[in-house]
């Protein structure tokens, strides 16, 4: 079996806002179900790193970026509709 593809995610959250927390929980659950041991999640709190949000062009929270494998995809929202999210991620 070839080396598994590692999914790299970056999740922008707004502190401990409800929808941000939901999105993190949803993402974690999704990864554990569909990408066990082949995912990396970086969480960026825009309240703590506003400059980064500005530079990265993040204006909605929560926003999930799938950085790898390409293409880069952007999903906003709580990621509650699993089917849509999986489709967007190519899973």
């Amino acid at each position, binding site marked *: 079996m070839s080396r598994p593809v590692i999914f790299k995610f970056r999740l922008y959250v707004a*502190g401990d806002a409800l929808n941000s927390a*939901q999105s993190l929980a949803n993402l974690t659950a999704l990864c554990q179900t569909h990408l066990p041991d082949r995912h990396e999640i970086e969480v960026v709190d825009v309240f703590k790193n*506003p*400059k980064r*949000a500005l530079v990265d062009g993040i*204006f909605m*929270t929560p926003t999930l970026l799938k950085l790898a494998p390409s293409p880069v995809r952007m999903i*906003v*929202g709580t990621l509650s509709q699993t089917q849509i999210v999986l489709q967007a991620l190519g899973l």
Partner: protein
Amino acid sequence: MKSAQPRLVKVLTKAPTGITGFDEITGGGLPRGLTTLLVGGPGSGKTILALQFLVHGAQDCKEPGIFVAFEEASKRIVANAESFGWKLAELRRKKLFFMDAQPIPDLVQSGDFDLSGMLAALEAQILEMGARRIVFDALNIILELLPEPAAKRRELYRLHEWLRARELTGLITLQAGGDVKGAISHQPFGFMQFMVDCVVILNHSVVQGVSQRNLRVQKYRGSGFDEDEAPFLIGQSGFEVAIAHTQGRVDVKVTNERISSGVKRLDTMLGGGYYRGASVLITGSSGTAKTTLGGAFAEAACRRGERTMFVSFDSDCTEVIRNLASVGILLDRYVKNGCLRMISARTIVGKSAETYLVRIKMLAKEHGARCLVIDPASAWSTSDNDLTAQSVAKRLIDWSKAKGTTLICTKLVDQMSSLEVGGSPLNISTLADTWIHINYLVQAGERNRGLSIVKSRGTAHSNQVCELILSDAGVTLTDTYTADGEVLMGTLRREKESAERVAHEAAEVAVKLKRVRLDAEEAELEVRLKSLQTELVAKQVEKALLVSSTQSRKGELSRGRTQMRELRGADAAKPGRKIP
């Protein structure tokens, strides 16, 4: 429950937008530290107005600003705004920040989200540059991504509260469908107009094929404002809103100075000329020399060295110059030395009355015109609905008065309609200070121009209808000939005049003849008198001779008798007397 401390009542201050007319309507600009909603259809000028508000703040008010672009990429906005001459590149370094917030096309949305990310990012930026103004352009784009109305509402409140807390002067633009009135009340943005402190609606419509832009302030908390729809246009330096009157405008300084109309006789009829700063209306049907009178005025103004602008709607400038030269009005040299500026309305882009007005105002300002001729102003009413054209005419007069510009407007009236009716379509006749009417009098198979002064405020003016004569020597006015209660003009007048002249000459000749005859008779009489006198003298001499001869004879006789007696010796002779 009582609040811990009395709420500080803040005096509403305003953030000027730098937009001509808009600041006047709102009494100074947008509410400072509060939120304004700007609603408009596609292409109604929302982005430009918003950007101008920021540019003015950054450039002239020391209020740096942030532009959050949801719709168009900032690169394109900047490129589009380039033509307005705003120094965006320079401002962008420190005072003006563009944030691109367009959702990427393949954005996937799943579940609820909010705008905290953006606000956090903006927060950092605001702190860094000390921004005081912020624009959210086309906020609806991002709101539409939100799954449910409640979420949209929540985010709007979030944004509004965020703006309030930071005391930023916020301007949120919303796209509305073609019909603004319908769109504004439709959910989810309908409630926004209740939430914000000021609502401005932009409307773009086409009336009889002519583009018409209107701006209306729908609400303005804590401030008076002009509630009417005001026409506006996007000009060369940005937004320009046309306003009927400038609030707090000081009454115009009225002068008694008279300036020449360019026609000597007309000056006399007006009691010295037009008043400086007056608005003069010249009406007449086609070809009645309205343009010529306008040209004569322009020439006279240039001769006095006053900067003058001539706006021609009917023909090109070169044509006007050529045509006027044929009646001895030479404008060419004044165009060359820069005193006179000729504008052909054909070169004015856009054809709504509003566009014309703003352009004319701008050009006049540019040229520093003291005298302005618009030929004919009636060209407006054809390209617009009456109401607009009328309000434009009103504002034109208002504006020229405020500036002290002497304004000559010519206006075409239908020959068929009477004078009274002719005055109504543009209705400037009531506004104008002086109204000169030229009409054709058709008589004995010819058309002649009759000029009369219908009114002239503050002037004792002539009540005479004068005949207007154009020749290569210029414009002259001549008395008409009134005979048997009939006014005679043109050839008839000339005929009458020459007949009069002939009759006069004949009479003179007759007198001369009679005089000669009398002279002759007198001479004859004198001659006769002389001959008679001579005769008289002859008679007298004769008579004298007769007398003397008679006496001598008598003497002779008596001497003879004495001698006889002596000779006879009959009587005693007198001694000493001897007969030889």
